[in-house]
């Protein structure tokens, strides 16, 4: 099963603190979901604004880094908290965060997940059905942002088109998640803007992710992710709570 293979890789990287050298290998070898998974689906729509279908990152990188290289523009506190998390990883006692306890991953961390995503567009909405821990992402089209909503793990996302680029603005995020799996922290002042467009003849989505948090970073910074068009893949059920092998114990993620 794809989720177990991928989860075990996640634990190894979390515990040993190194990047995954052969990303995607476990997922690509996974069995499709029953008869339906073998059925041919049509190619990605020629319409550059039609994102409907299943997309999957071709590789897993547990770190978010600025597109121009180097470390994010940390404030003193941002760097101290990141270093604390990295050191805890190296010591074999990684600091638990929300998804290790089966809570939503948060934005932008969810955007790095090595699991498929199905995008479904309906009037006024774009819904992202993430396989990983059943994250449900609701993106409201052509609505004003509202900075006064209760904070949540995935925040409040509004989007509009600029040409053929979808611009998603996410605010109202709580501070219980991280920027990435490696350990970049954020506060509830985080705001994330994704600029997503089809590239490579519609076979991939490119997302430029701009992260703003004046407490943790001295200025906004931008990272990037690619998602490949995977019409043969179906989003499968994910039951994090079943035999959660990296369940947090006393604030530390223990691999079992």
């Amino acid at each position, binding site marked *: 099963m794809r989720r177990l293979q991928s989860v075990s890789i996640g634990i190894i990287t979390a515990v040993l603190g190194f990047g995954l050298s052969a990303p995607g290998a476990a997922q690509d070898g996974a069995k499709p979901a029953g008869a339906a998974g073998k059925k041919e689906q049509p190619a990605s729509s020629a319409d550059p604004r039609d994102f409907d279908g299943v997309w999957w990152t071709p590789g897993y990188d547990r770190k978010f880094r600025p597109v121009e290289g180097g470390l994010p523009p940390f404030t003193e506190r941002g760097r101290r908290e990141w270093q604390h998390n990295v050191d805890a990883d190296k010591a074999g006692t990684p600091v638990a965060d929300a998804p290790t*306890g089966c809570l939503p991953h948060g934005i932008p961390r969810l955007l790095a997940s090595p699991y498929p995503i199905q995008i479904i567009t309906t009037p006024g909405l774009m819904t992202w059905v993430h396989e990983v821990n059943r994250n449900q992402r609701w993106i409201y089209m052509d609505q004003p942002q509202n900075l006064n909503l209760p904070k949540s793990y995935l925040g409040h996302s509004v989007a509009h088109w600029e040409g053929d680029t979808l611009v998603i603005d996410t605010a109202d995020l*709580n501070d219980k998640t991280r920027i990435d799996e490696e350990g970049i922290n954020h506060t509830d002042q985080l705001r994330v803007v994704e600029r997503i467009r089809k590239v490579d003849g519609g076979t991939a989505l490119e997302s430029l992710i701009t992260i703003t948090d004046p407490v943790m970073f001295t200025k906004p910074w931008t990272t990037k992710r690619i998602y490949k068009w995977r019409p043969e893949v179906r989003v499968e059920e994910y039951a994090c709570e079943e035999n959660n092998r990296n369940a947090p114990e006393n604030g530390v993620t223990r691999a079992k």
Partner: protein
Amino acid sequence: MSPHASWSRIALFAVALATVPLVQAAAVPAKAEDGKPYIGGAWLVEKPAAELKTVEGKAPPLKPDAAAKYAKRKQASKKEDPVALCLPNGVPRLLNANKPIYILQKPKQVTVMYQENHQARLLYLNLPVPKGDDAPDPTYNGMSVARWQGNTLVVDTVGFNDTTWLDDSGLPHSDQLSVVERYDLVSPDRLRVNVTITDPGTFTAPWQTQVMYKRQPEMLGLKEDPCAEKLWTPPTASGAG
């Protein structure tokens, strides 16, 4: 319909709503884009049933072993309830969760999003029910295929594990369970689901129950429902450094 055309119309609608603080849904269309009855949008179960009865109002036809298991489970601690551990509810228990659902209706796939512990059911249209070598690995919510039969959406679900309960009271099932749901729009604002439960490992015969949903026209999307917070409190950023 070109997406550009539909987006510009939605944009106009959004301008009209700009002073409304909450995100609000557009007017409910009479028909879906493929001419089928429009069952998309937000719904809430009218009367969540904690203990399933047949449509005739009788107790489900349990076999003796299953009846014994059910009686024992009713005595047991609520901690043994898989839903208390934030596991997926299973079908049809998920239909009776007292939280909104949101249906994304497309010609090739109807996706039912459940606020309850952020679950989703992906209903693939016009595919055969998977059998034999194609049978799916067992899961909590099973694997579903669907088809329109006239104005009724018929959903076949197979591939269940035997972990879930059929209702809040602990009605059991085996991994031989299969469920057929028939979704009928009985009026623009009411959705009736007739559910046929077949499980030769648990019941003496197939039986039917019913769930009614009421449309929630003001809702667009669903709220976050982080069930696992009941089990664990994650640290905040300030607590880590």
